């Protein structure tokens, strides 16, 4: 029993993922968990690492959009496979809302972040892809979270993110906001700097440091 993922195990998962073989992916995940790999390790060393690689291959035009979409759907299925364990444990008092901004359809990263909050003893509400701003505002009002996370995968959706930040920081000036996602690799941090209480999160390690504070 060991909470580590070997290179062979990771490559086996990636190979199955690129082949669109959900059965083999499921088997690999089940074997990893039976071998003592914890959820955090599974999320970071398998799911996140594999999806970053899938993204690179797509950007390099070595795999098609269809392969990338199928890989995403399979990883979402893997998250569903383990999600019962994500929510176990005692009652959570602190709450975080995680959402993808309007027109943002890449929800996998945001969902993993919401699960990460759960793994660290928070209630992580995930609002899903393409959350319209009025819905986001209504849910913040209803659930009164201790933190808000906004995910941005496509750089061209930056204006939607800024609109959301304008609205949320005006209505809830003290609410800490995290912004993360692959789009921020291409810039955007400068546009976020003027907002008070908004932190750019570059990695899951960064996220963990903030969550446990």
């Amino acid at each position, binding site marked *: 029993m060991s909470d580590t993922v070997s290179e062979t195990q990771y490559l086996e998962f990636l190979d199955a993922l690129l082949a669109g073989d959900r059965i083999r992916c499921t088997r690999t995940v089940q074997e990893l968990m039976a071998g003592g790999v914890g959820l955090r390790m599974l999320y970071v060393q398998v799911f996140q690492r594999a999806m970053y690689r899938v993204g690179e291959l797509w950007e390099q035009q070595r795999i098609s959009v269809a392969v990338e979409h199928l890989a995403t759907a399979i990883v*979402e299925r893997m998250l569903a496979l383990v*999600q019962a364990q994500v*929510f176990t444990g005692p009652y959570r008092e602190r709450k975080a809302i995680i959402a993808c901004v309007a027109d943002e*359809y890449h*929800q996998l990263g945001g969902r993993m972040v919401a699960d990460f909050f759960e793994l660290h003893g928070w*209630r992580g509400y*995930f609002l899903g892809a393409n959350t319209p701003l009025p819905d986001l505002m209504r849910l913040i009002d209803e659930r009164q979270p201790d933190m808000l996370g906004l995910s941005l995968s496509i750089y061209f959706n930056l204006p939607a993110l800024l609109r959301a930040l304008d609205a949320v920081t005006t209505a809830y000036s003290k609410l800490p906001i995290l912004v993360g996602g692959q789009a921020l690799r291409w810039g955007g941090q400068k546009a976020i700097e003027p907002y008070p209480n908004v932190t750019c999160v570059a990695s899951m390690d960064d996220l963990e440091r903030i969550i446990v504070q």
Partner: protein
Amino acid sequence: MTLSEPLIPAEIGRQFLCECANVVVLRVDNDGVISFANRYAKAFTGLTLEGCQLTDMMVNFEPETDPDQWRRPSDTPRMVNVRTVAGLPQTLYVTVIPVLNAFIWFGQVDGEEQERLRREVLVLNHESSQMSRELVQKNAELTQLNALKNQFLGMAAHDLRKPTGLILTYAEFLLEDAADVLPAEQLQQLERIRSAADRMRGLIDDFLDVSLIEAGKLSLNTGWADTAQIVDNARMMVDRAADKRNISIRVSLDSGAKRLWVDGPKIEQVLTNLLSNAVEHSPDGGQVSIGSRLEPTGFGLWVEDHGPGLSAEQQNRLFQAFAGQTNRKPGGERSIGLGLMIAKKIVEAHGGQLQVESTPEKGSLFGFTLPPTCLAVV
């Protein structure tokens, strides 16, 4: 490029259509037999195609349809449902061009339609995945809140037990010591205090039991217990109430099972609950029967009354905690419906089953069975 040179030479176009393009190209003879299929047509259908009837590759739900319709030229592409290698039918938009003794069939998937489908499937998959997460999360929240509720219930019941016990004890002392000095009206008030405290202690005990059961902490302290003694003790608990209303209790036990390997006080609690319910729901002057039977499959003990009975709907809700909150006993007091739920859990913890048979206006029979492992035939 000269004027006579075509923009795309015919041979290059033909070769592309036959070998590379994602377009189904067939040459179909006038008798409906496919005489040529391009690479994509074969890969798309997973069939050899050449030599097959054109209709063999179609999904046709209307056998009466004129097969020649697939050969007639039309001004706009016509929808044709085709079998595919993936096992899922696909709609091709087909253009038919007649040539000498045959016709050429060009079939294409509508790219725009596919794009719309892909987007919608993606969104639906997101929504379904999101809903599934919410469902699991809400389940976890409910489980956690239920655990908190049980913890609170257990703490509250534990803290209330002692003061309630003191009220009961002092009320009993006063009833004994001051019986000669207090006027009858005050004695009656004192008796009401004692009776209310007694009922409250019973409720608190039920709450404690429920909090333990819900927390999965119901433990059995098993040992040999005398069957007749269990019945006598339970009967003693209800004798007073039965006497008050002139209800007789008849006992008929099977002599085969004199001792049981059970948690005696808990089985006694079960029987007391059944017996007390039977007395409460019996008409004045009625009769309640206690019986037992030893069978190869185990030991059965039951309590029968001739009260108002229960409808099928009432029977369905009997063993749910707090399901009886709207019930009123014949004496007018409210029942919170925990007793039977606790009894059921205790019996199940012994490996047995608690059952009810009831007919409205005729009465009810509540009984439980215990497995052979709980038996000692002496």
